[in-house]
């Protein structure tokens, strides 16, 4: 960043030099007409080269030379976002900054605008010694997103760990003064539930960190159809209990290289979520198909769906769309971020398409490996289908 500003500084001083030399060239024009035309050509070359250099930067630069009544802008400043109405608003903010800088000498503000998602821009203005004004526009959306993710993570982690600890402390406290067996029994039971919940969170966190440093030594070629059958059957019970129809449409031998239990936890997690957020009578469908050298698995539900602004964040650790609901459904807030880690680790990708009230589709893509299945595996598959 400092380097960029250094380069900018150099460019700007060169631009000023260009304007000054152009003025002096004008003054001596009558005397040295041949020399000035050469000089003019050189300075023009220099100026266009400088503009080319400024065009490379992702930071928008607007330069206003009051003395020569000249205004220059690099490519980034002309179209910060590519969305027209947002560009208009950014330009308006730049104009306001120019007025402010002309009065105060400098200025700095963060400007936000909604273009699909909310974008943040830092607009910074300085008055130069030549009384010219320079304004830079920097898109800090990604930077502020990372900041939010970090602070949210710390806040959520402390909250998630604190809640069960607080509950256990309170329950244990009541237990010490309790003489009635029935009540003591109930309190002890609640303590067990809360400690399980806490150990689940810690397990999930450990899983995540293990994944982050995980190796690929014990990977084998795995038939994904087996993985899906297993993931579906472990969830069949809870689907029935909720009055849902959970079905699997499988296209047979699709091989991936990876770790079996991890892959099962990916699909098991996705199916679990699909069931959790569906209502009685809905259908949850898991379908897999091989497309060239990749395998596509869709987990489709017709549940409550996910709002657009949440869709981008659900894979973050501890991010929750609706806190009240997640406590009722008993999740740890880590499921989807574990899923995403495993899928990425396996060289795949995961995405979600969802509309509120219509339902969600989670699509997992994994690289397919072409393997002749061992004979016993073929029999195994025959028995399953």
């Amino acid at each position, binding site marked *: 960043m400092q380097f960029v500003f250094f380069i900018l500084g150099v460019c700007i001083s060169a631009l000023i030099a260009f304007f000054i030399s152009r003025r002096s060239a004008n003054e001596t024009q009558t005397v040295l007409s041949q020399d000035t035309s050469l000089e003019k050509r050189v300075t023009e070359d220099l100026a266009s080269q400088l503009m080319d250099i400024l065009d490379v930067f992702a930071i928008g630069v607007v330069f206003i030379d009051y003395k020569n009544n000249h205004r220059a802008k690099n490519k980034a400043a002309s179209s910060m976002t590519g969305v*027209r109405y947002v560009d208009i608003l950014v330009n308006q903010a730049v104009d306001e900054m120019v007025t402010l800088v002309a009065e105060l000498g400098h200025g700095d503000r963060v400007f936000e605008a*909604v273009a699909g998602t*909310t974008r943040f821009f830092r607009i910074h203005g300085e008055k130069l010694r030549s009384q010219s004004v320079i304004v830079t526009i920097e898109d800090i959306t990604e930077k502020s997103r990372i900041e939010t993710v970090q602070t949210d993570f710390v806040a959520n982690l402390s909250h998630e760990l604190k809640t069960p600890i607080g509950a256990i402390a309170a329950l244990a406290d009541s237990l010490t003064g309790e003489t009635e067996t029935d009540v003591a029994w109930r309190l002890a039971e609640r303590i067990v539930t809360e400690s399980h919940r806490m150990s689940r969170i810690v397990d999930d966190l450990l899983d995540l960190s293990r994944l982050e440093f995980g190796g690929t030594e014990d990977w084998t070629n795995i038939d994904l159809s087996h993985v899906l059958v297993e993931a579906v059957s472990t969830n069949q019970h809870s689907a029935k209990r909720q009055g849902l129809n959970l079905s699997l449409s499988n296209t047979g031998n699709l091989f991936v290289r990876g770790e079996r239990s991890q892959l099962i936890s990916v699909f098991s997690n996705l199916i679990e979520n699909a069931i959790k957020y569906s209502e009685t009578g809905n259908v949850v469908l898991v379908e897999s198909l091989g497309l060239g050298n990749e395998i596509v698995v869709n987990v489709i539900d017709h549940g409550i769906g996910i709002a657009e602004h949440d869709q981008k964040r659900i894979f973050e650790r501890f991010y929750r769309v609706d806190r009240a609901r997640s406590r009722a459904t008993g999740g740890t807030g880590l499921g989807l971020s574990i899923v995403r880690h495993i899928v990425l680790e396996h060289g795949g990708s995961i995405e979600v398409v969802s509309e509120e009230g219509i339902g969600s589709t989670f699509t997992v893509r994994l690289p397919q490996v072409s393997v002749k299945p061992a004979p016993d595996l073929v029999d195994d598959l025959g028995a399953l289908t």
Partner: protein
Amino acid sequence: MVEIRKNFHSDLENAVAEVIRLGASVTEAIPRATAILLSGDLEGADYLVQADDEFDGRASALEALCFEILALQAPVAADLRQTVSIIKISGELERSADLVVNICKAARRIYGHDIDPTLRGVISKMSEQAQKLFAATMEAFEENDDAKAAAIDDMDSYLDSLHRQFIQQIFESHSNLKIDLQVAVQLAVVARFYERIGDHAVNISEKTRFIVTGWVRERDGISRYKAKVADQTGETPRISEQN
């Protein structure tokens, strides 16, 4: 050729630029208000409600500028059409901004109540469509594009059908006891706000068509009326078609 009426043209250009900027503000505020409504963001609602005063001030300053142009410069032909239309457009913009503020006020009123996911889905869609309409109508104005402006009316019919769908959905959700009456009424009004924003976008597009070609919508109505009267009486009524 020497530009004689430099002041006049720079005034008019400023007025056009201000319309474009105000239009961009409205376009940007639509999804913002929707996010405020769906997330129950009271702080954001306050901010947008208060920002409306500045918007109103700018809209009336724009009108004043146009009156000044009319009084001091006596524009003719296309310039006259543009000046007069901007006066009308500034009203449409001001009204649209008010509707966005109304969405924020509704967000305050239903604060704390859950909105059924199906309804949330339709609200998002209506907001998206209203924003698309507004962005398109402002582009048509900026580019003096008659064809694009003429397309806005068709785009609006989708927003109208979303509005109808939404009202139906409210009835359904209410009969399933998913939302209470107070929220249902508020949401019905909110849907109306989006639909009205769409109508203002259509009005602006009609002004754009008038600026570019001199077309007026009412003329269709006038000729229908003339034909009707002529059918009944055999006489053509004297109604001015001047614009």
